Each structure stands twice: as structure tokens, then as C-alpha cells.
């Protein structure tokens, strides 16, 4: 009942093609945006910003990036961490070399480096199918982490080997650095995530998105229709690496503040992959849902036993996390490979009728 489409007729193809053709969806999005931009900054405390909201938005962006490659184009990548590292280190080098450069511009440029690296590893391996791209991305992952560790130029010869986000302002407001307020960082991450989500959604519902999905679903048929597989996959790979690079820069500058190469190791790649799977392969909304779910899960796991009155000293939280992650992945793949996004869709379809039974 709540979600009735009856009475909503589209009188032009243009209206039918809009991102949210159903009015109720637009209301929901409007409310979410208002809450995100107005309510949250006024009410949330530092813990929420630093531990939940900012990482959520940064991870969501990275998940969007990986979703382009794995969810839409169907190519598996295990190198997300490595590409995020490229973005972070590129941003660091750029801003330390050119401190006057606007930090948002730095973020956007850092993605280009990641895209370039992505092409270098992608070109040889996208000509063939199957798990081969996974191998190339693994190569990238291990090589890049090693590179940023060994070559001291990347961390400006800092003896501790870490890189730290220097304070930078945008329009006079401190955005990065130790003194920047969490709320400002949150708003920056939020804006980046929303803008990217919109752009990616536009790409994905048009010609380019369809060519990716065609390659994913049946690449032989796609080629016979006239889609060029190599170019299509390369575009997905480059764009995905770009977005992950920007997310990596945000990861360092907005979330962690200072970072060592180990933060970008293969576990990060797996984490983002899990977010993609849980949220839903090939879904912009799913990227956000998956990221949110995975960010909240450990917090839930540590607090839940206490809330329920259990004593779980025997089972370490970290182990439980691994087990739950693993089990969740298998669960989602079996039950709903399209993840939380599809569950949301199903819920909406049920809402069409509720509270009536049929």
C-alpha cells in the first residue's frame, strides 16, 4: 500500500528513464540526504564520525570502484588495496610537493595515477578470461605494497616509514590534518561519495554500463553484437582503479590521518570485495549498503555479547569476525547473490501490498 505505483504514469521516455521513477523512492532519497547533510552534522559525536561514518563513506567509495569492475563488468580483482595505496601515496607526494594545490583537486588527480597503474597491470591480462585477471591484480597488490615500503622517496624519507596527512584547507576551512574537525571531514567524504555515486549511476544505466554487463553475462555474444571486449574491460578497469585511488587518498587523509603500507595489504582488498558481495554485485545502492554493513558488523560483534549477557572470553572477537564474515559471504552467495540491494528491492515489492496480504 505504501509503495503503490498505481497512478504514476510516465508520459515520456525521459521520465521513464530517470534514476528514481517512483515518487516514494524520491522522497526516501530526499529524506536520507537531508538527514545526512543536516541532521547528522548537528547531532553526531566525534566517535560516530571517526569510527563509523567517515570509514563508511570512504569504504563505500572504494566499494563503488570495485563494483564497477567486479559487479558490472564481471572481472574479479584482488588488488583493491594496492590501488588505494597508489591513490594515497600519489596524493601525499602531490600535496607535499605542491602545498598550494587544493586538496580536493589532489584527491581527484591521485585517482589518475591509480588508473594508470591499473592499465599497466590490466592490459596484458585482460586479453584472456577467467581467474587470470585475479592473478594480475594479486601481482599488483603485492608488488605495490612492497614498492611503497621499500622506496623511501614515496614516504619522503621519513624514518618511521609512515606518511601523515598534512593540514590543508578548502575555502578557509581545515579539511585534513590533525586539527581538522571530524564533522568537516565527514561532509567532505559525504560529498565525494554522493557525487561519484551519481556519476557512476549515470554511466551504468547507459551505453557503457550495458556494454559492461553484456561482457559480464556472456562475453562471446557481446563480441558478436559488436562490443569490443578488450576496450570495454580496460575502461572498467581504469575507471575502477581511478575511483579506488581516490578512495585510497580519502582513506589516508580523511579517515586514518597517518598510515603505513600494511594498511593497504591484501586484507583490505578482501574487505572491499566482501562489501561488494554483501551489498550486491552490480548495484550502486548495494555498495553503500555493503560498506555500511561491514563497518557496523565488528562493532555489533564486540558489543552484542555484552548486551545479551554472554561471556565470550573464549572466542576472540577477531576470530568471530573472520568466521562471521566468511559465513556471511557464503550465505549471501547461496541465498541472494545480489546481496542486500536485492533484499531491499524485495522489501519494496512487499511494501506494494502491505498491509494487505495480496
Amino acid at each position, binding site marked *: 500500500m505504501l509503495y503503490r505505483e498505481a497512478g504514476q504514469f510516465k508520459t515520456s521516455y525521459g521520465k521513464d528513464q530517470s534514476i528514481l521513477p517512483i515518487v516514494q523512492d524520491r522522497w526516501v532519497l530526499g529524506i536520507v540526504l537531508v538527514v545526512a547533510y543536516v541532521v547528522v552534522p548537528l547531532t553526531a559525536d566525534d566517535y560516530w564520525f571517526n569510527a563509523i561514518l567517515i570509514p563508511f563513506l570512504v569504504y563505500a567509495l572504494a566499494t563503488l570502484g570495485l563494483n564497477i569492475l567486479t559487479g558490472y563488468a564481471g572481472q574479479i580483482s584482488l588488488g583493491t588495496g594496492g590501488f588505494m595505496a597508489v591513490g594515497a601515496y600519489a596524493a601525499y607526494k602531490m600535496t607535499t610537493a605542491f602545498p598550494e594545490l587544493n586538496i580536493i583537486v589532489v584527491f581527484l588527480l591521485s585517482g589518475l595515477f591509480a588508473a594508470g597503474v591499473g592499465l599497466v597491470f590490466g592490459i596484458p591480462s585482460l586479453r584472456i578470461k577467467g581467474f587470470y585477471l585475479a*592473478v594480475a591484480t*594479486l601481482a599488483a597488490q603485492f608488488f605495490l605494497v612492497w614498492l611503497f615500503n621499500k622506496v623511501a622517496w614515496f614516504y619522503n624519507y621519513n624514518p618511521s616509514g609512515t606518511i601523515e596527512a598534512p593540514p590543508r584547507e578548502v575555502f578557509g576551512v581545515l579539511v585534513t590534518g590533525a586539527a581538522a574537525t571530524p564533522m568537516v571531514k565527514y561532509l567532505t567524504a559525504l560529498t565525494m561519495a554522493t557525487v561519484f555515486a551519481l556519476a557512476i549511476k549515470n554511466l551504468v544505466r547507459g551505453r557503457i554500463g550495458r556494454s559492461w554487463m553484456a561482457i559480464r553475462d556472456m562475453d562471446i555474444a557481446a563480441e558478436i553484437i559488436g562490443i569490443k571486449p578488450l576496450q570495454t574491460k580496460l575502461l572498467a578497469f581504469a575507471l575502477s582503479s581511478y575511483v579506488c585511488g581516490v578512495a585510497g587518498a580519502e582513506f589516508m587523509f580523511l579517515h586514518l590521518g597517518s598510515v603505513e603500507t600494511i594498511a593497504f595489504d591484501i586484507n583490505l582488498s578482501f574487505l572491499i570485495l566482501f562489501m561488494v558481495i554483501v551489498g550486491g554485485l552490480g548495484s550502486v545502492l548495494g555498495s553503500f549498503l555493503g560498506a555500511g554493513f561491514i563497518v557496523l558488523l565488528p562493532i555489533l560483534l564486540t558489543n552484542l555479547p555484552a548486551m545479551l549477557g554472554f561471556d565470550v572470553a573464549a572466542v576472540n572477537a577477531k576470530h568471530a569476525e*573472520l568466521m562471521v564474515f566468511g559465513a556471511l559471504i*557464503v550465505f549471501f552467495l547461496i541465498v541472494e547473490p545480489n546481496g542486500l540491494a536485492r533484499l531491499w528491492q524485495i522489501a519494496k515489492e512487499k511494501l506494494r501490498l502491505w498491509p494487505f496480504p495480496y
Partner: protein
Amino acid sequence: MDFLYAVTVAPLLDIGQDPTFFAEVVIGGLMAGVMYSLVALGFVLIFKASGVFNFAQGVLALFAALTLVGLLEGGLPIIPFTDFKLPPLPVPLAMAATAVVMIVLAFAIEYLMLRRLVNQAPIILFMSTIGLAFFLEGFGDAMWGSDVKSIDIGIPDASFERWGILFNQFEIVATGTAAVLVAVLAVFFQKTRIGRALRAVADDHQAALSVGIPLKTIWVIVWSVSGLVALVAGIMWGAKSGVQFSLSLIALKALPVLILGGFTSVPGAIVGGLIIGVGEKVGEVYWGPALGGAIENWFAYMLAMVFLFFRPQGLFGERIIERV
């Protein structure tokens, strides 16, 4: 200039100047390679028989090793709500018990996971094995604890010299074990009825089903055999470098081995493993210092990537002809 020299000329000079040492490095590499091959074997088995790349193979090896150590040391409270703890078991009994555990695990995996993913896209199956890997790792750690353990199954680790070159007894045993295992598996696949059925299943699940091949049984068999192979690999690796988390990362190293050897080839897994083993060792010893060390982290993958360029199906793999 210095760097260029260090990377191109110096290593070759080093090799030339001390050929005995080079031979030792190569042999060390071969031995390490044998270990890789053992793990890769498990992959090939499952891939050959079900078309699934089992990312959890490394974790299976770790899990097997953990279980073995746990049984050897004793202390597992197997009857709940009592204080009864299992005493340390003698080696043969512990091994047998671990083997049983791995077979039970294979049943569980088939029932809970594989059965429900019949005929899904390979990428989905692959990702489910990633989930499985994480789950087993957490489970193993929770059961047995995550500190490094050592396995002692009675194989001496002494070194001896022959023909002026240093050999290691343990590594010889490992190589011998691997050779036996490979021979047994090769015969199994080529000559037996079950082997043929396994190959059919790898080709097409639905077709195999329609011919009457019991998919579930096949999968249980394959995953059990793989589990046993993982057990052997886990023992070997564990006895050599201790049983710890990094064992599960071996799974990742197996990918380059399989690229080199071909995903469906048992001899390929061996040859691939040896090449990677030697390549890594030689690379690390002779080229490593010039590049700052620790090239082993990425050398195997880079080698695989280069290989992909020239021969994507690996040395022994089959060229896949697509039919539309």
C-alpha cells in the same frame, strides 16, 4: 648506473663465481618448489573435478595442520559440559584422526555450500571459497589458538653433504612424499572409473548429472582427497616453518603455480611449483639485494603475469575452444 649494473651484470657474475653455492640455491628452490606443488596439487584436483578454484585450499592445509597439532598435544575438551580433555595422541593415530576430520569437513562443505551453488557462474563459486577460507581460518584459530605451533612427526631435519653440495634430509623426504602423491593421483585420474567421472564433472555439471554421475558423491570424494593432500602439505609446511596464519597465504602463491603449469594439469602443478620455487630463491638471493630485498613477496605473481602474455593456458594446460 650502479643500479643497472647491480641488476644485470652482478648477479650473473655471482652465479658464475660460486657454482656450488648456486647449485645449493637451486636445490633449495626446488625443495621449496615441491612444497608449492603439494598445495597446487590440491587446487588442480578440485578444479579438474568441479571447475571450482578453491581459494580455501591453503586454509585447508592450515586447518589440517592445526588439527594435527592439536591432537598431538592433546587438551581438546571434546565432550561438552565435562572436564574431559583429549590426551595427546600418538603420531599415527593423530594422523588418522586428522584425515577423518578432513573427510568429515569435505562432507560438510559439500552439503552446506557446494550443493547449493550447482551451476552458478565460476566467479560466484570462487568467491564462495574465499568466504569458506575466512570461515575456516577463524574457526581453526578459535579452536586451537592462533600462536605459532610446531609439528614434530619424526622426520629429522639434519643436513648432509654429498658431491660437495649441502642437502637437507627433511626436504628429501618432502620431495619423496610429493612424488609418491603425484604418481598415485595421476594413476587415479587416468585409469580409474572414478577418475573419468571426475573429469566429466569438471566439464559440465548438468551433463554429468544427466548421465547418472552422482555429483554429490564425486564432490565429497574430490574434496576429501584434496583435504588429504592439504593435510600432507600442511604437515610438510608446518614442520618446516611452523604452523601459522601465513600458511593460508600459500593459497595465493598457488595461483602463479597454476598459471605456469595449467589449471587442469597434475604434472603442470609440479613443474609450475618447481619453477616458481627456483625462480623465487634465485631471484631473492642474487637479485634481491639490489632491489632492497623481500622480492619473494611479488616475484611469483610477476612471473605469472609475464607468462600470461605468452602462454595463457600454461605449460601443460588445454586450449579451450569456445563453442557457441
